[in-house]
């Protein structure tokens, strides 16, 4: 809040910079108006960080919608969970009067992927590649879902509604206009307005934070967004996310099914459908911790009997297989898909492309490319959200990966110095000295500087955080100039001068 001192010192005032909102109308006499005015509603005082104010405003009819690639969540503001979560699977996209999904035989039939379709494509509402996306179809799907929300779950009728739409911050414009069109026509008669809020910001608000590094592991991609005071500072993305994970789970189950029948290579009939893979993933899938992953990898080379509590076997029924079968899979193997898809632990670092960085590395590079101050704030505030974040063990793993990377590399953006095998600190210092000698050659300083090179080389192990701050002659001079004839400065100005 901006606190503002007007010319007359007897009035203290806080300015409301938030959007004007409907609130209790008070007669102007109550506020002591000297002249007759139409009574203007005294705006409720809410912070500049507007969103929480909705909780104590009358938030009756605020519908909150979150639309992702595979699910639509809808609910009311001020409630702890959404009223409904609708998917965009093929069962929702049938003709009216097509009741085949209620046929008892339906669950026993395995539905094959259509030719030319990617894994799970018919379960998606949209994909970000708009080149061969039928926007009309997206509208149709959305329209049907919004109608269902309206009539089955929200059940607000005729009343004016405020709609809050949570969306990823980078949305293709055609898709966004598609969504807005549907909402404006779908929420009959008319919504009062649609407020767009970006999902990383909402995630931070929901965690009670103002700045955070939001790791959103979604369906098509993982995005890492750095927030600083509710503003998005930086975003990094990778395709290692839900779709890859689910496909990996499907591949593993297919291999296991083939193995059970006795075929060396998976056959067409063994191929596990999307629904089966999805069910197995959400039901029994999990994620190794870092040590477990290392143990598991070494155990593959030297199979050794461990007396672990996790060394049980999980039976996964496949009722749609022909004939219906039950897979017996060691519980530890169910963590393998996450290992391959999200952390790429068996892939060489050099084989990774820019778009498929493993999540740990992605988080680390995002942190690394942040400005120093923002990084300091975000480092301790890593939020992990998105559908895949429900996978047990994944949050722990990401944190472990990031801290391992930090321990290994520090905060040095240069991964490898190649042939420059000298201590990078020393090189930096030398460069620093060269620059200083260029700007102001002061002969008196040179002997001192030469001697200062030696202790730096002696103590390379001391992390920069614990070293005494370096003295900057220019800053000191400025400081002196500023404080000349003034009161001792506050802490804030000192900080400002340092940078």
């Amino acid at each position: 809040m901006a606190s503002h001192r007007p010319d007359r010192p007897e009035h203290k005032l806080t300015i409301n910079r938030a959007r004007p909102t409907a609130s209790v109308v008070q007669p102007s006499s109550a506020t002591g108006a000297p002249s007759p005015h139409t009574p203007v509603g005294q705006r409720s005082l809410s912070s500049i960080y507007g969103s929480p104010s909705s909780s104590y405003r009358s938030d009756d009819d605020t519908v909150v919608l979150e639309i992702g690639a595979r699910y639509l969540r809808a609910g009311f503001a001020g409630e702890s969970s959404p009223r409904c979560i609708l998917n965009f699977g093929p069962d929702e996209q049938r003709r009216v009067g097509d009741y085949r999904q209620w046929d008892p035989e339906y669950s026993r039939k395995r539905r094959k992927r259509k030719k030319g379709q990617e894994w799970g494509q018919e379960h998606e509402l949209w994909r970000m590649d708009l080149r061969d996306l039928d926007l009309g179809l997206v509208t149709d799907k959305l329209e049907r879902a919004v109608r269902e929300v309206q009539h089955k779950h929200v059940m607000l009728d005729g009343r004016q509604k405020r709609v809050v739409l949570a969306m990823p911050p980078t949305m293709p414009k055609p898709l966004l206009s598609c969504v807005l069109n549907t909402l404006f026509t779908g929420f009959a008669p008319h919504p009062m307005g649609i407020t767009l809020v970006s999902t990383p910001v909402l995630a931070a608000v929901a965690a009670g934070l103002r700045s955070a590094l939001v790791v959103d592991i979604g369906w098509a991609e993982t995005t890492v967004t750095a927030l600083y005071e509710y503003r998005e500072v930086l975003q990094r993305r990778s395709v290692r996310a839900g779709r890859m994970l689910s496909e990996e789970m499907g591949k593993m189950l297919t291999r296991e099914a083939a193995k059970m029948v006795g075929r060396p290579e998976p056959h067409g009939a063994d191929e596990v459908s999307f629904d089966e893979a999805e069910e197995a993933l959400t039901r029994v899938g999990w994620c190794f911790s870092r040590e477990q992953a290392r143990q598991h990898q070494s155990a593959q080379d030297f199979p050794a009997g461990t007396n672990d509590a996790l060394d049980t076997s999980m039976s996964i029924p496949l009722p749609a297989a022909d004939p219906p079968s039950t897979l017996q899979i060691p519980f530890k193997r169910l963590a393998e898909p996450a290992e391959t898809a999200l952390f790429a632990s068996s892939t060489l670092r050099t084989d990774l492309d820019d778009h498929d960085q493993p999540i740990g590395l992605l988080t680390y590079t995002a942190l690394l490319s942040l400005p120093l101050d923002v990084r300091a704030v975000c480092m301790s505030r890593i939020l992990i959200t998105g559908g895949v974040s429900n996978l047990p063990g994944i949050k722990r793993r990401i944190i472990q990966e990031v801290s391992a990377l930090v321990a290994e590399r520090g905060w040095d953006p240069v991964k490898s110095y190649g042939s420059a095998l000298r201590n990078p600190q020393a090189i930096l210092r030398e460069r620093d000295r060269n620059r200083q000698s260029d700007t102001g050659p002061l002969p008196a300083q040179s002997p001192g500087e030469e001697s200062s090179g030696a202790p730096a080389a002696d103590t390379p192990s001391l992390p920069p955080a614990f070293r005494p701050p370096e003295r900057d002659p220019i800053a000191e001079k400025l400081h002196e100039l500023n404080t000349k004839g003034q009161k001792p400065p506050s802490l804030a100005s000192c900080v400002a001068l340092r940078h």
Partner: protein
Amino acid sequence: MAQQFPYTYYACCVNISSSSSIAQKRSSRVATAHEEDEDRTFDPRSPRANYSLYPLEHLLYCDDCQQIRCPRCYTEEIVAWYCPSCLFDVPNTQVRTEGNRCQRNCYNCPICTSPLQVNPLEHSSHLAPEGSSGASYFLGCPYCNWSSLDIGVEFAKHTGITAQLAKLKSARQSQAKKERHERAENKDIKDTDPPNAPPTHDDLFTNLRSFYKDTLSSTNPVNPLSFDPTLYNSPPSVTRLMNLYAPPSAKRAKAAKPTPMREAHSPSEGFLPLSPTTEDATIARMAQAGWDGLTSTAQRVQQQHPTTKFVDDLWPVQTRLLTRRAKRCATCRHILTKPDSKISSTRYRIRILALDKIPRLSIRALAAHNTPHPSFPITVSSTASSSTTASRFEYESLRPGVMTQYLLTLHNPLFEPIRVTLGTPAVTPGNLASRVTVLCPQFEVGANTDVWDEALNSSAALSSKSKTQPGDAPIQAEAGKVWERGRNWTSVVVEIVPGFPGDTVVEVPVFVRLEYEYEHPDAAVFEKMREEGGAKVLEVPELGKQTREVAFWTVLGVGKVAGG
């Protein structure tokens, strides 16, 4: 398809927006004339067709617009809320606060979603408590045998289950909270301790909410006596303008940095830090529980918190309320249906169905002519006895490349005779190019007059074609002639040659256009009103006979080509 062959779908709202992706739009310059034709054939196999095809029974009709109305072109208004399980009415004001759920004793099984029953607990077993003061009822599923005893829930009374459940839940939560507090106070903060249950989602949410409320009100103390005319006595837009044109010094003063709000620090403020031990415990519990101890996707969606992982944590689901809705035409706002608001009555006050306004198209194979049509299982026919002997026509295995004759019958629900024109593409769109020929595309269908007329008139006058007698020579359909005609129905022959490749459903789009002479039923009354009231009566519909015209696309599902 799930529907049994043969079937008919009616299309509505086809041309809302042209279906084109960006790629198509880019290439549209080349194919403009071809693709952007207004009268292009409706393609039943396109993915978008699923959203505009309906069985006739699902459609309404707007008398004023003279058009079919589907869920996309009518708006709905809720008339009444009720619980489908106990059929009790819920007043409008309560619906929202109660979360659209029944607040009585209606619960659904968290495992199989069937309604739960309140059963008395028998004390004869070892479960008998020492004193008989204990709980003596539980919720049980009659289908899958789940019972609330599985999650340790018993009730003292058989009524007010919701209140009792809520009390139980809050008691459990406060117990867990107390334990957490004790742990936090007694022991040092160490992660090596066995994990205590993390605070529930609801707890965290309420904590966070109160935290935000407190912080916001403390950082911005509301002072009702503070007064600044530039701010409070002018509309916000004026304030903004003043701000814009204020001298720079004043502006700078206003743009002073806002005092940052505090962040949440502890679970009591809704902030939950990650604890690796909790995740470890979850994984260990998963390994122990096995496939059957973990919840399925369908079960999770039912729960209030869709992150419920274990079957032991499932909570009975309150029955969701249903609504009765009136429907209005989105274009002219006329009411199409209006149900009675009383839950016990199934009557409609207003109901204009497409079924009563639009001719019903039904198709069946001519070879199966004598067997009753699936839609009309009971047909009074002289050849009914022979239907059992006639071989059943296999709609599921049509032979590609072989012509099959079908009989398309139109039933007229209107009280006026109609003139029908049928249009089909010669070759069906899509991969499977089947050739279609309607032998008689233009014909008339009689009015839906009194059923007795047919019986009283001589049968010879009605049927234009002599009925084939069993044992006759192969049926010969003539081009340009109606096959058979009745009181309010007419049949024509359609020849279809299914194309390659096989294993695909054959669907034929048919454009139906009908014309009829229409006279307002109350024309005489209006005439009288006009005579009496002169020019005052404004809303007098057009009188006299007028020609009305209705046109729509239909899709006939005629069968499936056998594997190829």
